[in-house]
């Protein structure tokens, strides 16, 4: 180093002036660090909002998140009852778990200091172990920043003005591209499976669709549902009610995806080729089934696969029961049912049509001819309104009306039809009446939002020009001199919350009577079963509850070797998928029964 390089030696000494400056650092613990508004510290989980879907656990590649039971939290439909527990020895604070949380319950907080000698203290259940974290949330995911896709691929449909012209199918189905996109939204949590009466393998077949393997999807679907195309079009889709994405957005269109997949199989032969089911050797055991509705067909199909000799007795000339005669063709076309039934026939299910039990053949004969009997007779009789003048010509029970139309008849409903009720059947009645060219007024005793009907049906009816009068109770049918319907009188109601809590009760407002002129009235206020086919001794040994047969978990009745399912039993809900579940589990039970007998 040369001595004359004085500058190079002196200049660095300028650093000394920094001595007088305030330091940058904070003086912990007197001063604490100011935490950013987006800081990713320890997690916080809103335990009430969390649905235990486990998506956080799935995305975490450090395997820092386990789903565990938490005291005080019970599983329920749409909630697994589990909550994430985080191992902070593994967590890398990447917050992917936050960004994929469909409910938005998981977030991160400003806390990042924890001192403990016990390693297990670092296994924390966010929300339970740090309830104060709620006020310190710094990093969360809104529906905009979340990695979940909350918007459903819209279903293409006919415009309302075109719909009312014919019975053409309203929904047009997903294209391949649409189905792939919609299927990719699924987070595979399986909450849907739990809420499906027959516990279909929903995430699995949606995965197959998103992978582009439609045939695999069909195979998975047929594992426990033999009428999937029907379900794909008209299922009440309780699965979508509990979809993890519906907490903050739109549920995955599970029904439409099932429809997409099953429609890839264009005919019975194709279904047979794709599903290629394993059919066991005939075991010689004969099972008789009463009613070719969803329950009966399902029991028949799954028993036939297990090698049983199946004969179905059906009163009508076509298979399907309510799905054939109750559901209008614009929702479920004839060919679609026929295709699925043809496939079942190819497996070996025999169906005797036009054979009404109790008339063409006696129950005893069937019972004696077979080793076991499954009964799925459904609800064939409509409830009557129970008001003055109901016997007038032009007053219909919805089931009869829909049955007639589905048989291809076109009854003259006149210019204006009044439909009474708020369920899916009432919506079907209204929309069919519109297609028959009538003006439709629908009366419901509560509000539209209280209607048990599917929102999609209500929306469809309104689009098609059905006028719905809320909070209206019919009081009298007005007849003309020939005994024909001339009009209907109804009173307005107000909704009064009952003392014990629960659904508000409609109470008539005095003096609010109004009359609507009309040519026909359709009562769609529910149906009941007709057990006239059963001999007295059988009826006596069955237990009935509110006009329905009581069965156990395996769908056994109180009568030996008699199983029952579908709408006519008191188990689960009244819809097609519940009937399928009844048929499916009855088939398992019947098989288990004979396995035991053999052994």
């Amino acid at each position: 180093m040369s001595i004359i390089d004085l500058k190079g030696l002196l200049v660095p000494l300028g650093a000394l002036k920094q001595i007088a400056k305030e330091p940058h650092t904070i003086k912990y613990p007197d001063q604490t660090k100011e935490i950013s508004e987006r800081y990713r510290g320890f997690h916080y989980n809103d335990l009430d909002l969390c649905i235990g879907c486990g998506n956080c656990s799935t995305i975490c590649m450090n395997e820092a998140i386990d789903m565990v039971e938490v005291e005080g939290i019970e599983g329920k439909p749409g909630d697994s009852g589990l909550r994430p527990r985080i191992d902070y020895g593994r967590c890398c604070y990447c917050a992917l778990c936050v960004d994929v949380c469909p409910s938005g319950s998981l977030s991160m907080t400003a806390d990042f200091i924890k001192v403990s000698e016990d390693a297990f203290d670092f296994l924390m259940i966010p929300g339970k172990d740090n309830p104060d974290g709620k006020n310190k949330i710094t990093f969360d995911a809104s529906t905009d920043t979340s990695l979940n896709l909350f918007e459903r691929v819209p279903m293409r449909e006919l415009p309302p003005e075109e719909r009312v012209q014919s019975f053409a199918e309203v929904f047009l189905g997903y294209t391949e591209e649409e189905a792939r996109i919609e299927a990719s939204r699924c987070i595979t949590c399986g909450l849907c499976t739990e809420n499906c009466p027959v516990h279909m393998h929903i995430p699995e077949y949606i995965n197959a669709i998103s992978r582009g393997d439609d045939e695999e999807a069909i195979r998975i679907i047929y594992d426990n549902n033999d009428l999937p195309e029907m379900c794909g079009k008209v299922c009440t889709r309780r699965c979508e009610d509990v979809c993890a994405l519906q907490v903050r957005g739109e549920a995955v269109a599970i029904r439409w995806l099932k429809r997409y997949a099953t429609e890839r199989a264009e005919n019975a032969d194709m279904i047979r080729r794709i599903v290629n089911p394993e059919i066991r050797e005939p075991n010689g055991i004969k099972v008789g089934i009463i009613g070719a509705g969803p329950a009966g067909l399902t029991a028949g199909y799954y028993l036939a696969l297990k090698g049983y000799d199946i004969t179905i007795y059906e009163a009508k000339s076509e298979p399907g029961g309510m799905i054939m005669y109750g559901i209008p063709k614009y929702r479920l076309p004839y060919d679609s049912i026929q295709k699925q039934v043809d496939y079942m026939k190819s497996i070996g299910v025999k169906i005797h049509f036009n054979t009404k039990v109790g008339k063409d053949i006696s129950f005893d004969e069937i019972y004696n001819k077979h080793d076991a009997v499954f009964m799925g007779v459904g609800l064939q009789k409509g409830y009557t309104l129970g008001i003055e003048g109901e016997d007038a010509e032009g007053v219909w029970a919805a089931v009869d009306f829909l049955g007639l139309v589905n048989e291809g008849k076109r009854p003259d409903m006149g210019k204006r039809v009044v439909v009474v009720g708020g369920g899916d059947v009432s919506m079907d009645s209204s929309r069919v009446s519109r297609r028959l060219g009538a003006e439709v007024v629908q009366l419901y005793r509560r509000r539209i939002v209280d209607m048990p009907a599917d929102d999609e049906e209500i929306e469809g009816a309104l689009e098609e020009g059905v006028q719905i009068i809320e909070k209206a109770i019919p009081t009298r049918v007005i007849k003309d001199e020939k005994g024909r319907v001339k009009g209907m009188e109804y009173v307005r109601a107000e909704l009064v919350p009952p003392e014990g809590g629960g659904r508000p009760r409609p109470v008539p407002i005095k003096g609010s009577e109004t009359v609507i002129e009309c040519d026909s009235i359709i009562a769609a206020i529910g149906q009941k079963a007709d057990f006239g086919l059963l001999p007295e001794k059988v009826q006596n040994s069955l237990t009935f509850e509110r006009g329905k047969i009581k069965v156990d978990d395996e769908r056994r009745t109180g009568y030996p070797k008699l199983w029952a399912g579908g709408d006519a039993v008191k188990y689960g809900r009244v819809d097609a998928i519940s009937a399928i579940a009844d048929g499916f589990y009855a088939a398992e039970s019947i098989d288990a029964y004979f396995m035991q007998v053999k052994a």
Partner: protein
Amino acid sequence: MIMKTTSERNKQTTLFIGPQHPGITGNMMVKLLVEGDTVVRAETHIGYLHRAFEKLIEQRNWLQSFTLLCRFCVPEPDPMELTYARAVEAIEGREVPPRAKYIRTIVAELARIQSFLLWYGGQAGSAGLYTLGQWTVGDRNYILDLFEDLTGARIYHMYIWPGGVRRDLPKGWADKTRRVLDYLEKRLDDYNRLLFDNAVFQKRAQGVGIIPKDKALEWGVTGPPLKGTGIGNDVRKDEPYCAYGELDFDIPVYEGGDVWARALVRRDEIKQSIRIIRQALDKMPGGSYYNRIPNPMKWRLPAGEAWVKTESVRGEIGFYVVSDGTEKPRRVHLRGAAYTHGISVLEKILPGQNIADVSFILNSLGACPPEMER
């Protein structure tokens, strides 16, 4: 393997620098054959840090790997995220909104500045000048504060990902960034007084660790070491990505190829980065910051491959990514500048140097072991 002849054995001895040594730039080791104070031969030994990142990424889906990418190299997590994200976008053909491109540019340049501030500490420290390191690492925290505000984390941001960036700029962040840049710009003079005006550094750095200009490209030198040999190659200029094509900046070039020239390049790079960020903040487009990817658990990329490179802090880094049409990459390969600089270049330029200059030269090359062991 260093082979020694009998006569050599009498005069020469073997020294190990690292893997536990304050002068080493991470978990690696340089094995030296020395004669007196002079290095005769040098060998870089790695293997102390192998985490199989490339293989681990191949086990993860296209999004999950972003928690690993930033961990390749602690001082510069963002270029890794940026490069991999661009590779994924290239395979998928995914568009990135203009706003995201500008935000990415800012993040990449902030990453450059903070990394160079850390380098100041290492370079000065290995010459025995400890004060500067304390200043620059302190000042670096202002940038980490900016990252914390923007991304939620100080070091491992996981912020740039396919389709754009993870969150939009927070309110007031641009102004805060401008204030930090103004402050840093003033501080650069203080750093100069402590380092470049310092006779100790001048004497230690000038003429030491020379990369010959005619060999630089042949050896695969990139980044500041290349610009220090007088060759102004820079991916940001040569193949502009993000918003670089729309911004005005210069590539600092110095002749000499020694530690001194490389240090000057880095000093000037900070100034250029400040210039780039200011422009990007001024020109920041509106609109979306993120072209939303599908559900990450079911996100399949079309089959294909991509080679994408960016100008990272140390030089050119590139990702070679192959997709076979599934949720996970078939193959991921990282080419980092540190691999060349820390192994082949280092081994070539150390012979003839003083032992005391080994870590000094190593720091000037910017060797980062995790980038060598992927």
